[in-house]
């Protein structure tokens, strides 16, 4: 071992606390980077593999009823590589063990599961053979949530008749990686199933012999999906086509895609925050080390050492810190990635989702850490290396103090000498004070980021389930029914209020832009469904014209007063130009609202409803659920309590894991900043503090003088951090929000309080460690040395 290396070893031992806290920061940045990059790569690779294996289609279209004979015409559209017609129906499952109605999407199979498109991936059991109308395959999420095995019986209400099926197999499908009930955002696996049955079963039940109501298409490479969708829509229009969509708008794919985009955002933002703070701390810590060792360095230079071994010596120190951080970061990143993948398995169902470390992320991450750290020490080193040895060998000129500007602003009697020491020390090193304050403020958004989801979710729940959907159940009908049905529902036991809703599939066009959505018809005096704007004021629907959610208006590029071409995608398929009369800021969705009679006038179907919102006595809700299961007119039932429970259940684990991880990082940052500042502060002022001890100041009085600086810096850093949190949460909510889901940038007072507590506790822990060093100050030594 060379002598410089021996010196390195001893320096590291002497500053082990600083080395460890800085390495932890590097590790935290690296862990987030590795975990998010690798999780992204893992999910993306598995998605590509599964889409490929399952022959995931490119275009999806629904019709009312089309003859199979037109399939060949679809296949002739240039660019279409494969066509698969299907029968898809939303049904109710009679599931005796569940008090609440279970809905299911029933999908026909024509080839015993080995379909040309959307081939299912069998996990257990078998797929009913073509012609076997009694067997069914169940999606794995539902089977797991309800402990269902092959051989079990399953009864489904098909077109009003109870039909019995046997569960033959349990499977996955690329179409239902994220199996979410239409209209919900989070999968409710206990109450929502995907059932695959042979098409003969659905043909018979729904009178679909020789026909289909759903078609999926695979495109040839390079085909223009937009053009094909247009041709397809023209072709399917006579059969009640409601407009084809590309992959981008397929629900499962969209959720998966959005999640992957968010992961990508995460891997390109948060790690840099850590790298930045780590570089800052390395800079300060090494800067101080170099200053302390300035005379040694000068002596080495005077003895004839060239600059390069000295520079390499200090870069080795950086290397040790980064290597330690990288080792911890890779281990932590893999653990975090595994935890993330585990929590994703609850949302996304893939055949073989196993975390795989992307080695390049570890290499790149370590390299970024090293460069950030090396940049941090360059300044400190350059300062020493440019000094002539004779200059460097003299002690550093003492810092010049002056009265802090702040003093003149404070009342005289508050300015005791001790307080002035604190103020002037802060003011005397403004750059360091600012950097410490900034460092502390960086820790705050970490805690806030971990916890604000809770606030955002609470807010969304409150808005969506208490203010917007004020009923506690929603029923949908398989086709529009006369509005009298609402009156019938009111007479069901326990129903206190029922209101009709109208959903009409429409294509909105403005210039070149178009968007396929449902127009929602509400009556002006609706009580149970009241859309709200961002300030939570109820939206008053004008009797005429369209009211658009802001995200939809932006996507169409229209403003109030503009005309939008509304094309009804069902029934008589009328087209009208309607004026945008209002734009509203909503949390959920890309909704278009109309007054219900205006909407019915547009479709020309008279006074009809597609769904009803119900307010049910809480005690009667279970009995009503059982009763609704038997009503043939009802396609699906959503119970609010249920939706909330499943939402919380799904999200709780993920929120908890990410909150714990981020809070851990906040602790690392706060510890790193405060501990290192306190250690450096103590190192620089040991002489002064020991002098005070000799003069009769107690340990705690002396500690107070040193720590008051940090109290002040924390007192300034916290509000700055809260401000920063606001910006970060705003940014994250903007980056994470998508068309269907606007994450509200809400930070609750609890979250701010938790952040403050975490930072203060970490600082207190650092202070405690440094305090023990203050207690061990050598009082005799300071009298014999000059600072």
């Amino acid at each position: 071992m060379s002598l410089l290396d021996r010196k390195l070893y001893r320096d590291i031992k002497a500053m082990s606390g600083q080395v460890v806290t800085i390495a932890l920061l590097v590790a935290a940045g690296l862990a987030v980077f590795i975990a998010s990059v690798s999780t992204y790569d893992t999910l993306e690779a598995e998605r590509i593999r599964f889409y490929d294996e399952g022959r995931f289609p490119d275009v999806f279209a629904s019709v009312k009823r089309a003859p199979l004979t037109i399939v060949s015409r679809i296949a002739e559209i240039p660019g279409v590589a494969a066509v698969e017609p299907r029968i898809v129906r939303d049904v109710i499952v009679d599931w005796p063990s569940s008090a609440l109605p279970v809905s299911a999407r029933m999908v026909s199979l024509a080839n015993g599961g080995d379909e040309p498109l959307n081939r299912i991936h069998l996990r257990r059991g078998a797929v009913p053979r073509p012609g076997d109308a009694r067997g069914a395959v169940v999606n794995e999420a539902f089977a797991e949530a309800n402990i269902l095995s092959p051989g079990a019986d399953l009864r489904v209400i098909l077109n009003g008749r109870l039909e019995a099926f046997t569960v033959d197999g349990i499977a996955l499908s690329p179409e239902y990686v994220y199996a979410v009930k239409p209209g919900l955002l989070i999968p409710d696996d206990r109450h929502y199933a995907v059932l695959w049955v042979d098409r003969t079963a659905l043909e018979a039940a729904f009178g679909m012999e020789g026909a289909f109501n759903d078609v999926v298409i695979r495109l040839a490479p390079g085909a223009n999906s937009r053009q094909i969708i247009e041709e397809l829509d023209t072709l399917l229009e006579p059969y009640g086509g409601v407009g084809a969509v590309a992959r981008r708008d397929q629900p499962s794919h969209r959720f998966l895609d959005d999640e992957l985009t968010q992961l990508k955002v995460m891997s390109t933002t948060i790690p840099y925050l850590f790298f930045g703070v780590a570089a800052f701390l390395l800079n300060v810590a090494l800067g101080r080390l170099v200053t302390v060792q300035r005379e040694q360095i000068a002596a080495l230079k005077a003895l004839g050492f060239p600059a390069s071994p000295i520079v390499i010596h200090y870069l080795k120190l950086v290397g040790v810190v980064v290597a330690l951080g990288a080792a911890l970061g890779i281990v932590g990143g893999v653990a975090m990635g595994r935890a993330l993948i585990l929590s994703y398995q609850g949302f996304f169902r893939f055949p073989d989702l196993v975390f795989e470390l992307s080695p390049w992320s570890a290499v790149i991450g370590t390299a970024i850490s090293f460069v950030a750290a090396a940049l941090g020490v360059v300044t400190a080193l350059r300062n020493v290396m440019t000094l002539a040895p004779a200059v460097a060998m003299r002690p550093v000129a003492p810092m010049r103090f002056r009265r802090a500007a702040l003093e003149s602003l404070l009342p005289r009697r508050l300015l005791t000498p001790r307080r002035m020491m604190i103020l002037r020390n802060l003011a005397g090193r403004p750059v360091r004070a600012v950097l410490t304050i900034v460092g502390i403020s960086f820790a705050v958004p970490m805690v806030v980021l971990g916890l604000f989801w809770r606030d955002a979710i609470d807010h969304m729940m409150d808005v969506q389930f208490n203010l917007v959907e004020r009923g506690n159940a929603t029923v949908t009908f398989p086709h529009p029914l006369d509005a009298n049905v609402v009156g019938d529902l009111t007479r069901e036991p326990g129903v206190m209020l029922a209101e009709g809703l109208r959903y009409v599939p429409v294509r909105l066009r403005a210039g070149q832009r178009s968007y396929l959505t449902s127009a929602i018809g509400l009556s002006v005096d609706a009580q149970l469904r009241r859309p709200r704007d961002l300030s939570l004021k109820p939206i008053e629907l004008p009797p005429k014209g369209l009211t658009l959610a802001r995200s939809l208006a932006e996507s169409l590029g229209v403003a109030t007063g503009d005309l939008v071409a509304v094309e009804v995608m069902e029934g008589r398929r009328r087209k009208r130009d309607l004026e945008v009369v209002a734009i509203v800021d909503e949390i959920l969705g890309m909704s278009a609202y109309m007054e219900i009679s205006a909407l019915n006038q547009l479709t020309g179907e008279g006074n009809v409803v597609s769904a009803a919102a119900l307010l049910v006595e809480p005690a009667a809700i279970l009995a009503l659920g059982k009763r609704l299961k038997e009503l043939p007119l009802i396609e699906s039932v959503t119970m609010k309590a249920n939706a909330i429970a499943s939402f919380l259940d799904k999200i709780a684990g993920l929120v908890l894991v990410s909150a714990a991880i981020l809070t851990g990082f906040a602790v690392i940052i706060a510890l790193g900043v405060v501990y290192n500042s306190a250690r450096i502060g103590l190192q620089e002022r040991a002489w002064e503090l020991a002098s005070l001890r000799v003069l009769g100041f107690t340990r705690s009085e002396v500690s107070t003088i040193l720590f008051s600086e940090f109290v002040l810096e924390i007192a300034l850093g916290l509000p700055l951090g809260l401000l920063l949190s606001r910006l970060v949460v705003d940014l994250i909510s903007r980056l994470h929000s998508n068309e269907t889901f606007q994450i509200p940038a809400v930070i609750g007072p609890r979250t701010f309080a938790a952040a403050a507590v975490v930072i203060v506790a970490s600082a207190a822990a650092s202070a405690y460690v440094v305090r023990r060093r203050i207690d061990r100050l050598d009082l005799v030594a300071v009298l014999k040395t000059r600072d």
Partner: protein
Amino acid sequence: MPEKSSANGRKVFEARGLSKTYVMGDITVNALHDLDLDIYEGEFIVLLGPSGSGKSTLLNILGGLDAPTGGRATFRDHDLVGADDAELTRYRREHVGFVFQFYNLIPSLTVLENVALIGEIATNPFDPREALALVELSDRLDHFPSQISGGEQQRVAVARAIAKRPDVLLCDEPTGALDYETGKLVLAAIARVNRELGTTTVVITHNSAIAGMADRVLRLRGGRIVGSDRNARRLTPEELNW
């Protein structure tokens, strides 16, 4: 045998069989060796000895900064040997004023504030201006230590040390870092404190010329007191020559 004092004051310090041994690896250093000592109220003592004679160790023990390895030492009714850190801190706070070779002023405080700082922990302090007038520094109140000379800094240190009206003033090589003229000014300040306030004063130095201003001169060598002289007449600092 401890020497009797001619001053009629009460005994302030008493040390019997005092020893201090430093063990550093294989090397054992006897800094103090079976030392006896009495100091009386109001006395001006100069502890004279070359470096390594143990004079600083003795001063540190008397000042409550270090503990002996053997023997006993008391300040009035305070036991300086068995006391814990908190008791020693209180002892220094209430009874001892220190002046060090390198002044040990707080660089971020002005002259006046450095002295006022001590007022915060003393029960009956001087007005800091009064203390500074005693060392003739009334015209430098708002200067920072870095803006005044070493001699002036040391006089601030003297003013700071006496501001709390200590019972004893302990000075460790107070002129060690100063030139001849400024050294004399500092000694004059210390002598004035002893004379006007009656503060028992112990000055350690290797400069034998300073011995002339003491009531008693104690000579240290090899950790023992090897000589004790009483000056018939205390010289004023102006009369000293080195």
